[in-house]
């Protein structure tokens, strides 16, 4: 009901990954809570629900090599496939401010630039003929190399994986190609209102210069040279910085031998730095990005959230389910169902593994109801105090989390990915079990306590991306407004164009 998927195919293919993530977050955020009396016995409640059969998902085998490499092996014999991934510590968080974009370029050119003995194009031909994939990428705290192949092709494909780890070439023509494509995404970044909102909201939470918010510009992108990519590889690509995971149709003991033969002789290197990044939030208030080719406002009300290590995390998860977690959440019920003000609405207290997440309340509403919708969310936030969360709301939220808990580990691949994430962030490998126990233990008092502790409407930065000439009331009726300029700085040596926030593209005029 949330999407009519007309033309989804073409749309999905051109949206950048970050934009897709933003859309996904928005959709995931759809939620709310009902105070409807649930006790009344109706027809459906008479349907028996037998006990769920006991289910113990296959646990991946964990192997730690003397050189520090950690390997997880997950057998899954249903289909003749083997998939693997390697996550390496060090990401955009650690790139220099003058070269923002370095890790993204590294993540692209690592693969497209080929190895000493084979160009990227030759790898493409070899792999595509086998319907196999080997891809690399970069993110905020890591880079990665992943692959997928039919099991009979494993040795051939794995040789390429090893070659990329040991002998990448980062050919210059592919760096230039990646820079050109990256420039396109900079030029296009003000086309999509939700993309603008996500990006600018991150700056309001973490600070514009924070590694969690800063963005590449033409100048930082063009500052990246081939030597920077080689230097990055040399600084981070060591077995002690890597977590390797394989899932598929193999024998774990045989695969362990194979991986040991491939990796055991690799020497340890310097550990990747573990820098701690603090949030530097903007002061609460109203922030406006004016965009005159839209008839809907993207509203994001944001503040720093918490780390998952925080003992309040489990109560916060229950709170989020009550507040913004589905059809029966308070925000969905009020903003969408009752008021008809938005299609996409949701939010909650954000969390992340190793830094504060983003607390956000998000919606899209027609220009003519922008201020009305913001006030409606405020009123729902006030209600958290005025109409404390009830036992029945908690019950619904916990039922929803616990009854669907099985979907966290219903495939061997999901179990593997969970374990790899816990290993990477230094969480206990049974964190999922702790999570279940934490949710079960959470009480109404816990949820109301965390709501009071973490949700403060006067501490939110309220960002609106919209067309202010059509707003129901000026945003300034709510408070002081800071105009946010999203003009894209031109490439070095090109003149600035007018301040509509559209910016110029290099060489486009």
């Amino acid at each position: 009901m949330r999407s009519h998927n007309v033309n989804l195919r073409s749309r999905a293919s051109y949206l950048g990954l970050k934009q897709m993530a933003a859309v996904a977050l928005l959709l995931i955020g759809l939620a709310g809570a009902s105070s409807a009396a649930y006790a009344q016995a109706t027809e459906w409640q008479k349907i028996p629900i037998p006990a769920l059969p006991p289910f113990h998902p296959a646990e991946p085998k964990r192997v730690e090599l003397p050189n520090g490499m950690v390997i997880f092996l997950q057998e899954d014999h249903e289909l003749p496939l083997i998939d693997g991934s390697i996550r390496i510590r060090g990401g955009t968080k650690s790139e220099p401010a003058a070269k923002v974009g370095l890790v993204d370029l590294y993540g692209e050119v690592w693969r497209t630039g080929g190895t000493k003995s084979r160009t990227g194009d030759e790898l493409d031909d070899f792999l595509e003929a086998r319907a196999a994939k080997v891809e690399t990428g970069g993110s905020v705290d890591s880079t990665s190399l992943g692959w997928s192949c039919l099991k009979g092709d494993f040795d051939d494909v794995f040789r390429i994986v090893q070659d990329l780890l040991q002998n990448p070439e980062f050919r210059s023509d592919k760096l230039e190609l990646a820079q050109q494509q990256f420039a396109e995404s900079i030029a296009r970044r003000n086309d999509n209102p939700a993309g603008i909102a996500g990006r600018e909201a991150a700056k309001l939470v973490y600070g514009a210069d924070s590694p969690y918010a800063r963005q590449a510009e033409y100048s930082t992108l063009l500052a990246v040279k081939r030597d920077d990519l080689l230097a990055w590889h040399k600084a981070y690509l060591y077995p002690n910085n890597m977590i390797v995971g394989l899932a598929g149709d193999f024998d774990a003991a045989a695969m362990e031998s194979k991986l040991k033969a491939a990796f055991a002789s690799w020497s340890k290197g310097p550990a990747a730095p573990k820098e701690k990044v603090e949030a530097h939030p903007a002061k609460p208030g109203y922030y406006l990005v004016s965009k005159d080719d839209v008839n809907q406002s993207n509203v994001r009300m944001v503040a720093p959230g918490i780390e998952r290590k925080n003992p309040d995390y489990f109560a916060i998860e229950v709170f989020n389910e009550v507040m913004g977690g589905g059809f029966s959440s308070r925000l969905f019920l009020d903003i969408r169902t009752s008021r008809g003000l938005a299609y996409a609405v949701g939010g909650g207290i954000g969390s992340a593994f190793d830094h504060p997440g983003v607390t956000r309340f998000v919606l899209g509403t027609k220009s003519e109801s922008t201020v009305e919708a913001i006030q409606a969310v405020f009123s729902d936030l006030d209600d958290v105090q005025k109409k404390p969360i009830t036992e029945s709301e908690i019950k619904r939220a916990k039922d929803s989390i616990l009854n669907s808990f099985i979907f966290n580990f219903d495939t061997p691949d999901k179990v593997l990915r969970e374990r790899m994430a816990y290993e990477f962030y230094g969480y206990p490998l049974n964190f999922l079990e702790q999570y279940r126990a934490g949710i079960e233990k959470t009480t109404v008092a816990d949820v109301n306590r965390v709501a009071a502790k973490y949700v403060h409407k006067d501490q939110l930065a309220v960002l609106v991306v919209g067309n202010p000439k059509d707003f129901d009331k000026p945003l300034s009726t709510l408070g002081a407004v800071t105009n946010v300029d999203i003009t894209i700085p031109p490439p070095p040596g090109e003149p600035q164009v007018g301040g509509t926030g559209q910016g110029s593209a290099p060489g486009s005029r």
Partner: protein
Amino acid sequence: MKQVVIRALILLSALTAAAFAQDLASFEKRTTEKVLPNGLTVVILERPEAPVFSFFTHVDTGSVQDPMGKTGLAHMFEHMAFKGTDKIGTTDYPAEKAALAKVEVTYAAYIAERDKRIDRDEAKLKELEKAWKDAVAGAQKYVKPNEFGEIVEREGGEGMNANTNDDETNYFYSFPSNRLELWAYLESERFLHPVTREFYKERDVVIEERRMRTDSNPVGRLLEQFITTAFQAHPYQRPTVGWMSDLNSFSATDAQAFFDHYYIPSNMVVAVVGDVKASETMPIIEKYFGRLPSRPTPDERTTTEPPQNSERRVILRGVAQPFYLEGYHRPDYRSPDDAVYDAISDLMSNGRTSRLYRALVRDKKIAAFAAGFSGLPGNKYPHLFSFYAVPVPGHTPQELGDAIHAEVDRIKKEDITDEELKMIKTRAKADLIRGLGDNAGLAQQLAIYQSRYGDWRELFRSVDRIDKVTKADIRRVSNATFSENNRTIGINETVKAASQGGAQ
């Protein structure tokens, strides 16, 4: 011993025909279908990997069936299918039913006055609007909002959603396997006793969806204009989400009539995949879904799009970055050449070895992305094979169009290579295998194939059709399809903000 077996397997080619056939046979063996006496088709695939299941309800009706002047109605009903039943979502259904009837009477009176061509009485209009809104408030008193969704969520439902496109409407989620009977109840009740409550507020939500996807999205705006231009007679020309004036006009009565006409058992397929036993599940599904009343299959014949005999072009000027799109009419999915189009799409678009990537992105360096694909805006009726490309800074949509045409000319004039043809066929098989490891994806595929071909086995035979494609087929179909007069072009052209009169 095991090691020896593994080594022996590795010696074999990755995709021996025998191993491939064996994998598919294993899935086929575990699949059962049954047509219930009321015409509903049920497909069950046993995949006991974990105690969960996914379902997919496919209704073979979409926005193509929207009545004139009521575009967006199929999608609107899809939203209403989350509003509950006569037992779910209400505190007192008999009272609510009467109140909802009043909403419809007052709305009809309001709309009749609003839409008068002459002699509209503004004072009366205000009164009628107030009467309607009062009636809405009166009905609202009986609503337990979102109770249907709440039940699914609290019982552990995962990924609950639905979608509507030009061809069909789909409903889906996953449940722990012990909720099978509960699911059968909920999903059948939803189509046995739907209640179109809270219709007019939900219509506002849908209008916001239109603003988000189409009006405030530069490529959304282009797509709508492009499709409207490419189709002049067939209902594919109309947007699934609906035109704004229709969204502001149609009623809950219209949505109910649409449901009554098109949501009938013979027009629906339900697929269930996961930790279920067909022998136990089929009787449960029969018990609940067998209650849906049998009605005649609706006449879904439509105007056939006449041959296009001149190039058409749509240019949207605005502050958005440039974008290039073009489409050529092709026959529907039942065409014997359907697999040939799939092969062309794969050849032109799939990965870094694709023709368009290598020409436009790698060699000419004029595009950040380029691809060609079937299925715009649907594929049940004759539709478009489309190409699109995103220019890198400094290059124009026109250059992209020229470069795409050069590649299209190549496949019209020269055979593709043996390696390319082999790669296409290998990838089709591997993609099919990769799709088998997911309950939700399998349920979707089985339901759609059952509906489209009348036999879910066609899913597993799809690679046989690709396997038969020859180089000559690709040339023949390309020559038959990719001609100037059969082409519609859509372009987003960037103009400087100062000279822009305000997009839309």
